[in-house]
Structures are given as structure tokens and as C-alpha cells.
């Protein structure tokens, strides 16, 4: 409970005593590029393979003359949009982005760079972390859209190549009873996950003390806590929005 209270107080410091807006604009763009562009390859690989595997496994479990083949892509679509694209992508990003944020801030803490900012009269939490949080909240939804698209495209490719479903059937399944609201839900989830991953990782890194060993521990704790927070908030958001 003490840690949660401390975390909430920490979030409060991110948006107080801020520097000039221009300082944040440039830093936010830099962070968005770092978080978004640098994660694109990983997200593409993970989401494409998840779409491929989902299609094969769903098709293998829907062997019945009464079930049209297009149901395969319908199931894959809903799984992807509602769960796989936002949640799995965020869990993967918790590992990549979360450990990066915690490691960077932890190293800055133990090498006195954060103290240097404070001595200059700069709110180090706000200066260093607010751009990361905003950058993540801007880029996660875009990455989730890319992940969703590639996941379905991967499913389409593997489905047609292995002949478990034809291209027409796959497209027809994707269009059947499509709920735009699910896309909205996925984007809401991605923004919530981005906020949680970036702030939890920043919190772990910012309050690192000791040396290199503690920076490593902070990164590990950041990833673990972020993943747990993503999964809990996934349930909470689903419960609220569905």
C-alpha cells in the first residue's frame, strides 16, 4: 500500500513545476520516435506470428460440416481486436519499453544526472518522465493498430497458403458482424496500458538507489509490475466497457 501511495504521489509530480512547453514538445517527439519506431519491428514480428498461429489453431478446432470456414477469421478477428493486439502487444512492449525506461532512469539516478537536473532547478521527474508517458500514450495506439492489421494479415496469408480457408472466406469472416466499438475498446486499452507501463517503469527507475545491480533489479521489477498491471487493468477496462 505504501508503494502504491508513493507511486500516486510520484505521478502527481510529473505534471507540476513544468518547464517551457517547447522543451516538452521536442522531447516528446524524441521519445515517441524511440518508443514507436524502435518497437515497430518487434511488434510486427510478434503480431504476425500470433495471427498465423491463431488462424491455424482456430481452424483445427472448428472441424464441422455445420460451421462455415469464414468463422475462423471471425474468431481470429475478435480475438485479435479485443485481446491479442492491445494486450499481447502491450505485454511485449512492457518488456522492451518498460525495461528501457527503468534502466535509463536508474542509470541517470546512480550517476547523479537526476541530481544535476534538480540542482539546476529543473523538476527532473517532469522533465524526464512526462515526455516518455505522453510519447507512449501517443504511440501505443498506433502500434496496436499496426499489430491488429499485421495479425489479421498473417492469419490471411497462412490460412490461404495452407488451404485451411480461402481468401474470400477469410475476408467474408472479417466482415461478418464487425463491431467498430471493439476497435474503440482496443484503443482505450492501449492508452491505459501505455500510461501504466511508462509510469510504473519510470517510478522503478527514478527511485533506484545503489549501483549497477540495483539498476538491473529495477528493470526486472518494472517489467514484472507492468505486466501484472496490464493484465489487471485489461480485466477492469473490459468489465467497464463491455
Amino acid at each position, binding site marked *: 500500500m505504501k508503494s502504491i501511495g508513493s507511486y500516486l504521489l510520484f505521478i502527481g509530480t510529473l505534471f507540476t513545476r513544468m518547464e517551457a512547453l517547447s522543451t516538452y514538445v521536442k522531447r516528446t517527439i524524441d521519445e515517441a520516435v524511440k518508443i514507436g519506431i524502435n518497437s515497430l519491428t518487434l511488434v510486427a514480428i510478434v503480431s504476425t506470428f500470433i495471427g498465423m498461429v491463431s488462424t491455424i489453431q482456430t481452424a483445427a478446432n472448428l472441424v464441422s460440416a455445420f460451421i462455415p470456414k469464414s468463422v475462423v477469421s471471425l474468431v481470429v478477428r475478435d480475438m485479435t481486436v479485443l485481446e491479442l493486439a492491445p494486450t499481447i502487444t502491450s505485454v511485449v512492449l512492457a518488456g522492451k519499453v518498460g525495461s528501457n525506461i527503468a534502466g535509463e532512469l536508474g542509470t541517470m539516478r546512480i*550517476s*547523479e544526472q537526476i541530481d544535476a537536473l534538480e540542482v539546476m*532547478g529543473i523538476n527532473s521527474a517532469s522533465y524526464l518522465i512526462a515526455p516518455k508517458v505522453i510519447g507512449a500514450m501517443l504511440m501505443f495506439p498506433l502500434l496496436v493498430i499496426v499489430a491488429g492489421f499485421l495479425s489479421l494479415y498473417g492469419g490471411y496469408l497462412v490460412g490461404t497458403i495452407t488451404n485451411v480457408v480461402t481468401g474470400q472466406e477469410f475476408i467474408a469472416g472479417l466482415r461478418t458482424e464487425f463491431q467498430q466499438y471493439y476497435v474503440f475498446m482496443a484503443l482505450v486499452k492501449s492508452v491505459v496500458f501505455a500510461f501504466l507501463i511508462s509510469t510504473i517503469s519510470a517510478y522503478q527507475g527514478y527511485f533506484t538507489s545503489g549501483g549497477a545491480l540495483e539498476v538491473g533489479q529495477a528493470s526486472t521489477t518494472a517489467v514484472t509490475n507492468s505486466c501484472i498491471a496490464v493484465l489487471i487493468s485489461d480485466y477492469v477496462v473490459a468489465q467497464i466497457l463491455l
Partner: protein
Amino acid sequence: MIRVENITKTFGDKAILKGISGVFETGKTNLIIGASGTGKSVLLKCIVGLVRPDEGTVYYKDRDFTHADKDLKTVIRREIGMLFQGVALFDSLNVESNVKFPLDTLTNMPEDEKLDRVNFCLQRVGLEGSNKKMPSELSGGMQKRVGIARAIVNDVKYLFCDEPNSGLDPQTSVLIDDLIKEITEEFNTTTIVVTHDMNSVIGIGDHILFLYKGHKLWEGSNKKILETEVQELRDFLFANKLMKAGTTF
């Protein structure tokens, strides 16, 4: 001028500072000396506000810094430059960007003025032409000089140096000491240096404060320190055999 009154700080059940008081004059190189673990760095961190003392007050020219609101603290902090023990240069920025950082963040100065100021400071610390080098490409002594350039770039009134000679060879240490003293006199800053380097004590100690187990045991100048009768200070000063042989200056 900086005045500290009755600074006390405890971590857990260990008292680090026990009622330290003192005055650090403008235009002088003030040294805080003592053996490792006596609270020198903690006192410095209390003075710059990185650690909040349990009791006592730090005054910057009669402005109560310890109990100031955030706005006043920010104003005072923008008059402060600090050289950290590990230098604390930003790894991802080159020398020029590191030195320019306080100007970029804290001022609205036009870009060409900023560059002029940066080049002046780099030239002042003997690093002209090193603008585009990364911190990792510099030696320890050069990094310290970049740290000093960054500390003074914003026309600071107060300069703090936490063990500026740590990790440096004796010759480079003397260069850094001389640079700190010259800058103090040239810019009329109130300079406080934490050190346990005897060359610094003798070379630049206009005003010295000796800490022992959290207490201030002695205060004076480098002219008087070798004549001290305080046994703990004598043990500290003459721990080195060369010093025991009888040093004069």
C-alpha cells in the same frame, strides 16, 4: 554568502551531521574536509537541497533556502552550479549540448548568444574545439572541466564541487583546483568544495571547515591549518608520511 545554522541529519538511527554551523564567504574557495564517512557530502547535499536536514537552516544571502517554497527554491537553484563527484554529464549529449543544457532549459537566450557563451566557458576551462565530442570520448580530467563549464555557464553565484579530484592524477588535480580557484575569483562566486585531498587543502583552501564524526571540529584558512592543535585534524593532515616530514607553503 552562504550561512548554515545547526544542520542536523540522521539516516535511520545513525546521526551523520550533528549541529553544523558555518559561514561561506563570497569570492573565496571554501573547503569542507574530513575523512570518508564524516558527512561532508551529506552537508553539501543539505546546502544545495538534495537532502533535507532534520534540523537547521541554510541561508543564501539571508534567504532561507531550507524552508523556502518551491518557487523561491527554484529561483535560488538557478543561481547554483555544481560539479558532481561522478561529473554527471548527460551521456546522450555531446560536450556542447551538455554545457548549453542549462541555457536551453532555463533561459530564453537566442541560439547564437548561447553558443557564444558555451564557447567562452569551454575556452575558459581549456577545452575549446571539443564541442562535438561525446562524454565517453573524454578523459576523467576533461570530463571534470566540462562539468565545471556546465556549472558556470548560467552566470551562477554559487559553485559547489563534490570531490573534484577523485579519480584524477596529481597533476590534473592541481589543474582542476587552480581552475576552481580562478573561476571563484573571476566570477566572484561563493564556492564550496568537498574534498579530502591534501593538495587542495593547502593549495586553494581560503576557508576550511573540518568535519569529524558529524561535528565541526575546526574552522580556519590554509595558512593556519598546519599549526592546528586539534589532534583529530592533525591525524587527518599528517596521515601521509610526506606531510609528516614537514610541508611548508
